[in-house]
């Protein structure tokens, strides 16, 4: 892992188009600003991890799908 020491207002560049700036350093955390091209998705890691985990659970959904579909139809 690359490690940088940065002060408020300083930034790092990743490739040509991604810039991460330290906006504020406080007791509760560090506030970062990210500038990235639109095709690069930027998320808090925990959100991405939650979605990945949910996807993995969804992929292993088992059993009688006809029955599941019926329950959903009854609900509607």
């Amino acid at each position, binding site marked *: 892992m690359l490690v940088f020491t940065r002060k408020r207002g300083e930034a790092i560049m990743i490739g040509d188009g991604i810039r991460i700036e330290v906006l504020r350093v406080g007791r509760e955390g560090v506030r970062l600003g990210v500038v990235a091209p639109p*095709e690069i998705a930027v998320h808090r890691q925990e959100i991405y991890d939650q979605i990945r985990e949910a*996807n993995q659970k969804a992929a292993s*959904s088992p059993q009688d799908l006809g029955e599941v579909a019926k329950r959903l*139809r009854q609900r509607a």
Partner: protein
Amino acid sequence: MTVARNLTPVAVRPAAATVAPASPDTIRFPHGLPGFESCRGFVLMTSDVLGPLQCLKSVEGPAASFLVIDPRRVLADFRCDLSEGDRARLGVDDQDTLLWLSLVTIELDGTITVNLRAPIVVNPALMVGHQVVPYHCVYPIRYVVSEGR
């Protein structure tokens, strides 16, 4: 390949690199799905028995299949705004033409949940899809539609 022609060059590069001639029914997912990054092509299957569910099945890369449902079947007023980046990835200007699919999970006790937080959006005109993670979203990842035993 119409996908390559109609998308912005930057957005399409990953897809173009991995494209194999595929069935016209194949929906391209240039980034796969989180956790299934190498699944780059899916088909959407429907049947009377399955309705209102549909099955999204991987046809490229590792085998994977998901049950999906239109989020508006779950929550009639479901609404989600696409970011500029999502629109670029999907090659769209107009949200009305898009197909929205939420992943369905059947938990061990039979509880049925739907992921309304990160819907899959497909642009049928280009047959390209993407799982979007809106920055501001009031819906949960695990929205319970039917309790289990």
